[in-house]
């Protein structure tokens, strides 16, 4: 596209070290560095979100007692280390906001999206590198704004991550003033960051694919990120609208959500969930893409039903716009409308089923290698199925009337978001670490981390279904205030102990990432013998991604164990000179 003159003019940028420290590591326009920046930001935020979860678990098992080691926290945040109710509310609000907006989205979309899209489609960088850099730094600013709300009087937002109005719309209702405003501002700023990111992703995927990389030769990871970017592009503005209305209610004297001035409290819920449901698929689709990638690679088999997998993701994305009412069955919405939302919600299980069965089909007659990445990807499938299936109870309106706002929902959230998205993240990190940092991660440590996480995760979140069935409400800081919940106190204690193990286990991941960076075995170009383009360049890839020309693509991404060749893999970019032509022509 650009003229030869431009190439010559900017030729100097080709040398990797010509840019200096600031342009290379901080204000980098290189998609690989930006991807890593998103990763580190998210890991940092995860430790804060995780710490909030640990404190919550302490409170739920041993309410109103001192959290060991937290006696120093000043009032009114804690009283001699004991957590008061408002702090507890602030904690789950910040826990969820951080985990969703600053951990899962930055890693799945920010980190993997940035790092992988150009490498996997055969481009030298994103379409708009400067916009890309700006996207990261806008996101970082949003993070700082959110964290700063811990230090304002009144503390951080405490109306839940869903911030239902009117609770969130009037400061005296929660006792939180600037905390909630900063929450709103932070999410609006983050929305701008996502907008820039998604424009970049979509443009890059449409316009910058290498020769031969047709849409139906894209790796499923890229398909998933493409669809996710479209969802982000269209969903976040709606959240921005809602939050703008909320901010005006808080600061501008309007009454959009306050019935006293003719406002409508349910409007918030409609706007929020119209964004919120596509949002949950934003958080699962990239993980599905990653799992498909890893499962195909380590089964040494083509993904079963490649096109069905791509179409299923499109179907999920399309249906996600018409199910938002399933969060509002008991909100006072018209019950007939509720039935409509129930039916659409049930139907959205169908494309998920297609994906699940295709993953199983991929394992069938494979030659499965159990690397740490593969174990995490398989755990993703198993845990997503559990989380998805609990969604079926909740989709059923009469049953949801009973389990809404109980720990059944909390169990669902964590099975899909930790069991789904985070296991997908773990699989992705272990799979692409060699490409990102040029060194192999420690497999043994990776497997130990996997097993402890897998077991303690299930011990933490599975019993929550039982709590929910017993009627245990969510967002209560002291379940012992209720007689009907007293008999299940031991379950809460068991959950909390498991949660501490789960939290501690994440140090193993952190340790592995840091240790391997310095001490890991040097990674070769293609350590997993995988087919996709990112494995055709040195690890880590140089500035400009390929030292030589960008590879040309001759076939789909999952030609593992092809009968046309002796090896059990066949890179997308490999031209078969002496073949009969069948392996070359195969397009999927």
């Amino acid at each position, binding site marked *: 596209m650009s003229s030869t003159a431009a190439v010559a003019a*900017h030729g100097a940028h080709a040398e990797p070290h010509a840019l200096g420290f600031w342009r290379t590591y901080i204000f980098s326009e290189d998609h690989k560095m930006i991807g890593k920046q998103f990763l580190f930001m998210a890991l940092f935020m995860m430790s804060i979100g995780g710490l909030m979860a640990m404190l919550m678990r302490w409170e739920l098992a041993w309410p109103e007692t001192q959290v060991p080691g937290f006696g120093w926290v000043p009032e009114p945040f804690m009283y001699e280390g004991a957590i008061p109710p408002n702090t507890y509310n602030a904690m789950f609000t910040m826990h969820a906001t951080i985990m969703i907006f600053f951990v899962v989205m930055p890693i799945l979309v920010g980190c993997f999206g940035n790092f992988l899209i150009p490498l996997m489609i055969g481009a*030298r960088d994103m379409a708009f590198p400067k916009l890309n850099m700006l996207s990261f730094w806008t996101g970082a600013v949003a993070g700082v704004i959110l964290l700063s709300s811990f230090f304002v009087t009144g503390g951080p937002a405490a109306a839940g991550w869903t911030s239902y109005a009117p609770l969130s719309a009037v400061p005296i209702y929660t006792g939180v003033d600037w905390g909630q405003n900063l929450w709103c501002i932070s999410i609006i700023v983050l929305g701008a960051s996502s907008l820039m990111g998604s424009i970049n992703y979509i443009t890059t995927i449409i*316009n910058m694919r290498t020769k031969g990389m047709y849409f139906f030769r894209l790796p499923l990871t890229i398909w998933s990120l493409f669809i996710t970017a479209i969802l982000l592009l*269209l969903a976040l*503005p709606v959240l921005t609208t809602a939050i703008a209305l909320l901010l*005006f209610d808080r600061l501008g*004297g309007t009454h959009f959500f306050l019935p006293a*001035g003719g406002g409508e409290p349910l409007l918030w819920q409609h706007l929020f969930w119209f964004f919120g449901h596509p949002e949950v698929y934003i958080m699962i689709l990239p993980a599905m893409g990653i799992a498909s990638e890893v499962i195909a690679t380590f089964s040494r088999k083509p993904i079963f039903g490649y096109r069905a997998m791509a179409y299923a993701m499109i179907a999920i994305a399309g249906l996600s716009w018409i199910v938002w009412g399933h969060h509002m069955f008991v909100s006072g919405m018209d019950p007939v409308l509720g039935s409509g939302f129930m039916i659409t919600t049930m139907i959205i299980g169908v494309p998920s089923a297609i994906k699940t069965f295709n993953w199983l089909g991929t394992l069938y007659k494979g030659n499965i290698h159990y690397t740490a990445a593969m174990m995490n990807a398989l755990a993703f499938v198993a845990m997503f199925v559990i989380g998805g299936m609990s969604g079926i109870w909740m989709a059923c309106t009469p049953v949801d009337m009973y389990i809404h706002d109980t720990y059944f929902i909390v169990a669902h959230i964590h099975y899909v978001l930790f069991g789904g998205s985070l296991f997908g993240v773990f699989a992705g990190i272990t799979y692409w670490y060699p490409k990102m940092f040029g060194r192999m991660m420690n497999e043994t440590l990776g497997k130990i981390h996997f097993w402890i996480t897998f077991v303690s995760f299930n011990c933490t979140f599975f019993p929550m279904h039982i709590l929910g069935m017993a009627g245990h409400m969510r967002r209560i800081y002291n379940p012992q205030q209720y007689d009907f919940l007293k008999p299940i106190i031991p379950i809460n204690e068991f959950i909390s102990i498991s949660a501490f193990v789960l939290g501690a286990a994440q140090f193993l991941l952190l340790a592995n990432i840091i240790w391997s960076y310095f001490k890991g075995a040097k990674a070769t170009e293609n350590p997993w013998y995988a087919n996709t383009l990112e494995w055709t360049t040195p690890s880590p890839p140089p500035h400009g991604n390929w030292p030589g020309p*960008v590879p040309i693509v001759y076939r789909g991404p999952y030609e593992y164990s092809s009968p046309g060749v002796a090896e059990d893999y066949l890179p997308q970019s490999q031209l078969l000179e002496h073949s009969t032509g069948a392996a070359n022509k195969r397009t999927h």
Partner: protein
Amino acid sequence: MAPRMTASTAKILPLVAPIRRIRSSGSSAGGDQSERPFISSAMLAIMMLIASEMMLFSGLIGSFLIFRLQAAFWPPPALPRLPIAVTWVNTFVLLSSALTMTLALRAAHRSRQRLLRRYLLATLALGVTFLAVQGSEWVRLVAHGLKLSSGVYGGTFYLLIGCHGAHVTAGVIWLACVAMAAMGGRYNARNAGGIEVCAVYWYFVCAVWPLLFGLVYLM
């Protein structure tokens, strides 16, 4: 379209400048895109931005409709009416700016520098007029007691119209940049991408207005 726009957009819109080729290392065997994309990256980006903006306006309009359809009286009895006649005129001002923008594009595609400048300036002037009239009407409305806090009637009015106004303002600033570049003779038939992208945005801003006008003023 694609190859024409690079240099100019790079100046005006540094953030959406298409990526520079980093290296071609002499070989032409690589997969570096040699074919022109169907649609230029900058154009794609602006269309994506507009899609996103449409969702933003849908959220606002949806909220407005909910309030409007639930309200027993609209506008509430004590509050001032909106100035319909002036706004009709203003609507024509904005819509005619879309026309001058089209003429500017035509001029650019024919490399008619003087015409191009004239039409760009006309578009700019119409945009500024629209904003000025809107602004003065707002001042009058505030003076007559229609405030942001005047129930959902006042709230939605200022929010919807204000949101559109902000978009027009952004468009005017962008137009001014383009006009400045046109003064320097940057655009011609082979290099009109910078104007095309700006025009698409301006059309969007103009197209949203009749919808808002119909809903907020006339309905």
